[in-house]
C-alpha cells in the first residue's frame, strides 16, 4: 500500500464510522429499510458503484463511501411521488440490463475513464432510453447527499451554524462559498 492509498484508506475509515449502522453490508439484505420502492441487494451494489463513479474517492471519500447512494434511495422512497418513483426504478432496471449485456453487474472500479464515458453515454436523452429517468435524479440526489453530508460539511466545505457577521460586499475568495 503506497502512502496515497494509505491516507485514502484512513480517511474512509474515519468517514465510515458515522455511517457504520447504515453501511454494514449484509448478505441479500438492503442496508436501509424502504417503505415504498423495491430495491434488490444487487441494485444497491450497483448504486454504490455508480455513486462512487459520480463522485469518486481520492484524497477524500467518494459519495458512496459517505452513504450518498443510500441517502438517494431514502429520498426517492420518502419524497418522490409514485410516478417519479416508478420512473426511477424503471430506469435503474434499464441501467442494470445495459450493464449485464456488457457482462457486468456493477461499474468496475478500475477503469475511471471507461466509467465516465459510459455514464455520459447512458445519460444521453432519447425516446427509448429510460436510464436518464433514473440517472438524472440519482446524480442530483448523490450530489445533494454528498454536499450535505457531515463529512463534507465539517471537513471539506465547513458549514457555519453561527456565522456571526454578515458582510455585504467582500472580495471573492474560496471562503465566501455558500454552504
Amino acid at each position, binding site marked *: 500500500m503506497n502512502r496515497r492509498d494509505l491516507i485514502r484508506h484512513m480517511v474512509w475509515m474515519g468517514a465510515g464510522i458515522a455511517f457504520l449502522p447504515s453501511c454494514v453490508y449484509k448478505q441479500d439484505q438492503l442496508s436501509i429499510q424502504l417503505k415504498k420502492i423495491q430495491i434488490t441487494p444487487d441494485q444497491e451494489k450497483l448504486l454504490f458503484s455508480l455513486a462512487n*463513479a*459520480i*463522485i*469518486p474517492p*481520492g484524497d*477524500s471519500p*467518494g459519495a458512496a463511501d459517505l452513504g450518498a447512494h443510500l441517502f438517494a434511495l*431514502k*429520498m426517492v422512497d*420518502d*419524497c*418522490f*411521488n409514485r410516478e417519479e418513483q416508478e420512473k426511477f426504478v424503471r430506469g435503474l432496471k434499464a441501467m442494470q440490463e445495459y450493464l449485464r449485456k456488457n457482462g457486468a453487474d456493477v461499474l468496475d472500479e478500475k477503469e*475511471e475513464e471507461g*466509467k*465516465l464515458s459510459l*455514464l*455520459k453515454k447512458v445519460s444521453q436523452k432519447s425516446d427509448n432510453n429510460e436510464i436518464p429517468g433514473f440517472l438524472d435524479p440519482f*446524480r442530483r440526489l448523490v*450530489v*445533494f*447527499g*454528498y*454536499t*450535505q*453530508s*457531515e463529512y*463534507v*460539511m465539517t471537513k*471539506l*466545505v465547513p*458549514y457555519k*451554524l*453561527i*456565522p*456571526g*457577521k*454578515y*458582510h*455585504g*460586499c*467582500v*472580495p*471573492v475568495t*474560496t*471562503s*465566501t*462559498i*455558500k454552504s
Partner: protein
Amino acid sequence: MGNLNLKGVKENTYDAIVIGSGISGGWAAKEFTEKGYKTLVLERGPDVKHLKDYPTTNMMPWEFEHRGQLTSDIIDANPVVSKCYAFREDAMHFFVKDNDHPYVQDKPFDWIRGYQVGGKSLLWARQTQRWSDYDFEGPARDGFAVDWPIRYKDIAPWYSYVEKFAGISGNKDGIATLPDGEFLPPMELNCVEQYFKEKVASRYNDRHIIIGRAAHITTPQQIHLDQGRAQCQNRNLCQRGCPFGGYFSSNSSTIPWALKTGNMTLQPNSVVESIIYDEKSNKATGVRVIDTVNKKATEYFASVIFVNAAALNTNLILLNSTSSRFPNGLGNDNGLLGKYVAFHNYRGRVNAEYDGFKDKNSEGRRPNSGYIPRFRNVLKQETGFLRGYAAGFGAWRSNQPANGWGNELKSALLNPEPGPWQVNSHIMGETIPKEANRVSLDSSKKDEWGIPLMHIDMAYDNNDEDMLKDYFEQVSEMFADAGFTNIKTQDSKQAPGLDIHEMGGVRMGRDPKTSLLNEWNQLHQCKNVYVTDGACMTSTSTQNPSLTYMALTARAVDHAVRTMKKEG
C-alpha cells in the same frame, strides 16, 4: 351560567383576560402584567418555552433526515400548509396541519396558522415598517372602506414604545411614506443592492431602496439583555426559534417578561369558545374555554378582555359569541362583523441577473433583505388602479452549477465558483377591503371542540390584477435601467392567504353604524372588549402589519388601564 360555584368564580377571576399569545397577545400580556394587573393568557395550542421547546434550533443540515425537505406523505396530507415557504422539515412542527383544524374555503384561501404559545411570532418574516398618514388617510382619500379613526400622530409614540423593547434594526432613511423609528443599527445592503439603490435614486425622486427594518437585535441594549436576549448571529434559521433571542417573538420577549412579574397565568391548550356577555351591565364578564385535551368547558372572568386570537380566529370568536342582545355575534349590531376582510397581494416576482461586481460577493446569512416603499399613488391618484404596492428586493450569488461526472464534478463541488449575481423582487400589494370578502360560521359543521367551522370567502379583484401588471412594468423598467439582464416576471397565481397577512372583519372606525371598533380598539357596543390583532385593520396598506398590531395593542392596554382606574 346556571349553578355557579362562587368559590370557582373567584378562583377563575382575573383583572384581564388575553385571548391568544401571538405577537399582539404577548404584548397585551406584557403591558397588563407590568402595570400590576392579574392577567390570564389563554392559548389554544401547546406551550412553547423559549430555548427549551425549540427542538431543531441547533441541528446541523445533515441531522435532518431529508436535509430539510418534505416527504410526499406530508405534502399529500397537507396540501395547504405545504405551500408555505417556511413549512419545511426544520419548522413544520410549529405549523397547523391541514387535517387537525379544517375550515371551509368558499373560494381558494390558504390559511396558514401557528397554534402554540407564541403563535406565528415564532415564524414571522420579522419585517417591521411603520405606517404613515399616506396609509391611514388612504380609505378617506380614495373612498373605500371607512376612514381610520386614528392618524400617525396617535400611534407614533406607541411605535417608538414597542420598537425600543422589541429591538428593531433599521436605517433612518428620512422617507415620508415610511417614517423612521427607534432603530438599532441597520443591517447591510450588499454590493448589488447598494448599486441598485444609487441607480434608482439617480433617476427617481420618489423611489427608494432601503434595507428592511427588521425585528433583529443588531446591537443589544440593556432592555434586551434584561429580557435575556442577545445579538442576532445571522444564522437565518429564525423559524426554528432562536437560541440567542436574536429576533423578536412572544416566546423570547413579551411572554417571559410577563411571567417574571408574577401577574400572568399562562394557560395553553385552552381554546376560547365564546365571550360571555352580561345584559344587565352591558359588559362582557368573561370567556368560555374548552380544554383541547379533555374537552371540558370552564368559564373565566375578568373586567376587561383582549381578543388577540389572530385575525380570522378573532372574527370567529366574536361571531360565535351570541346572546339575546347580540344574536349575530358580539358587538355586531350593524351586521358588518366578518366582512371587509382583506390581505396582501404577494403574487408577483421579478427575477434578473447582473453582470457586474464579479470580483465581489457577500458572506454570511443575512436574515433580511432590501425593501422598496410604496411609490404609486402616494401624493395623488396617478394610475388606473387604487393604492399601490411595496416590494422586497434582494441580490445574491449562487454557485456555478457543478457539471460533469467523476473527479471534474467532485472538484467543482469542493471548490465552487460563484455564478452571476441574481436579483429578485416580490410585490406586497394593498388590497381593497370589500363587503363581498368575508368570513362566516358554518351553520352545522363543527370542530372537535364543538366550535363552528370557519367559512372563508376572499378573492382578488381587477384592482389587484391591474396593480400586479403595473408592478411588473415598473420593476422591470427599474431593473433594465440598472443594467440587469434576463429579466423575468412571474405570477404565482397563489391564492389569498399564503401572504399570511389576512386582516380586518372587525374594523376600526368612528361610526358604530359602519365599524365595529372605536379609535381605542374597543367594541363600540361592548366597551370592555378590545380587539388589537389583525382583525381590527380598516385597510391593509402595504407594510408588513405586525409592528402596527404591537403598537395598537400597547396603546389599547394603556387606554384600558386608564379607563379601569377612572371607573374604580
